[in-house]
């Protein structure tokens, strides 16, 4: 593709930079505006209108505004850790994107165990939240951080177990293979739709989306940042640009988890391969590298809409209700789902 013979590190850097600028930045801007508008309409208001046509430049206005805010660090805080915490959240958000495939050749990494990578990295951002809560030397923040840790412990498991069903069906932990298996599959011999796992793994999909809601600390699972009791929990003491990093990472994480859920359950970047007679990964036409990212963004918008819709429709759970729901409902359900999937897989 590139005529000049660049060393490998430069090639991969260019790929990442290009991907970030060409796909992630526009996608981020669109998703940010979409979510803002959506939540405004749900609350019967207009949302951002001033920055750019129809408020489309809101993200940049936000950055420009927060750049000018004073950076207050409480005297008693553990300053070094206090400064690092938002960076941990930001970095873990960024490196989570690396595993998402956007097209037959438009992927950043092709891990054999991509599902493992995603599950491992997705729990790193909570470390940032935990140390932000601890280093602030504030009681609200400390409680918020501890609640976040308890919530991660409870909902990490349903999420992991829900993904096992997908891995059983696809027979692979590679994200590209999972996309391929879904679009190349067939439902009882009919391949007009492929076999998006949301149809066969609907229990897993439900458990996964609930767990994602909890991992993202969105309402009804938002005790760690409950504004009416903990004053934003671990973010209480943050101001200025460091606060904005937390704030944007929250929205970015919604988008990225939506991307990953669409890869695992909704067929990812693909269209059913039978439409065009593709029968292997190599046979997929090159134009899918352009259409694929667009399909992914569409699915991301749909799923993040779902996450936000739930967020604005349900009241907050209590801490004990949250733990009970995870351990006594979600985990047994997902274990039974795994065994049923396995039995059906072996039987057919």
């Amino acid at each position, binding site marked *: 593709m590139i005529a000049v013979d660049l060393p*490998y590190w430069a090639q*991969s850097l260019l790929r*990442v*930079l290009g991907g970030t600028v060409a796909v992630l930045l526009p996608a981020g801007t669109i998703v940010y505006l979409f979510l803002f508008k959506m939540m405004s309409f749900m609350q019967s208001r207009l949302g951002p209108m001033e920055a750019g046509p129809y408020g489309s430049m809101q993200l940049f206005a936000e950055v420009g505004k927060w*750049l*000018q*805010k*004073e*950076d*207050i*660090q*409480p005297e*008693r*805080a553990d300053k070094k850790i206090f400064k690092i915490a*938002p*960076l941990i959240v*930001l*970095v873990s*958000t*960024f*490196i989570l994107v*690396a595993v998402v495939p956007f097209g037959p050749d438009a992927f950043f*990494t*092709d891990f*054999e165990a991509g*599902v493992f990578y995603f599950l491992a990295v997705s729990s790193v951002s909570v470390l940032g939240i935990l140390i932000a809560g*601890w280093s*602030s*030397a*504030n*009681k*609200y923040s*400390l409680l918020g951080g*501890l609640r976040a840790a*308890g919530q991660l*412990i409870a909902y990490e*498991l349903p999420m*992991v*177990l829900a993904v*096992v069903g997908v*891995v*059983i069906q696809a*027979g692979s*932990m590679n994200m590209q293979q999972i996309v391929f298996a879904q679009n190349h599959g067939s439902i009882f011999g009919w391949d007009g739709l492929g076999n998006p796992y949301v149809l066969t793994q609907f229990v897993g999909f439900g458990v996964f989306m609930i767990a994602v809601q909890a991992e993202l600390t969105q309402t009804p699972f938002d005790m760690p940042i409950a504004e009416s009791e903990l*004053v934003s929990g671990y973010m209480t*003491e943050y101001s*200025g*640009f*460091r606060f904005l990093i937390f704030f944007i990472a929250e929205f970015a994480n919604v988008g990225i988890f939506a991307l990953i859920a669409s890869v695992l359950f909704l067929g990812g970047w693909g269209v059913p391969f039978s439409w065009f007679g593709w029968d292997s990964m190599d046979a997929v036409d090159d134009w899918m590298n352009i259409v694929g990212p667009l399909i992914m963004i569409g699915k991301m918008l749909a799923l993040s809409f779902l996450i936000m819709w739930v967020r604005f429709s349900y009241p907050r759970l209590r801490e*004990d209700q949250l*733990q*009970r729901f995870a*351990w*006594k409902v979600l*985990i*047994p359900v997902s*274990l039974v789902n795994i065994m049923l999937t*396995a039995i059906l*897989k*072996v039987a057919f």
Partner: protein
Amino acid sequence: MSEFLRDYLTVVWFGAIALVLAGLLLGIAALVRPNKPNAQKLIAYESGVDPVGDGWSQSQIRYYIFALLFVVFDVEAVFLFPWATQLERYGTFGLVEMGIFVFVLLLGLVYAWRKGVLRWV
């Protein structure tokens, strides 16, 4: 460099871009933002009331038994994934084996449940 390590190089680039971006913006912010600290501003926020005691106060971590259970199930997940990828090859044998394994784990969960560990105390 092997293909495997090359994939991780990409991950490193993503991390680096995040850090450079944040560093750049924080650097710009340091140039344009005001900096007027005073003693009142720098004390911990407790809804407008002067904070009582230390911010690092003792609090009861109620979910430590959940944390122990979590470790058990997380290790289980590590066993489940390799099995899940190879289920087609193992067939009925693998199914029965994993059925026993998951059943024993479920038994553990039921035991913890009956003992009242899964209750918020």
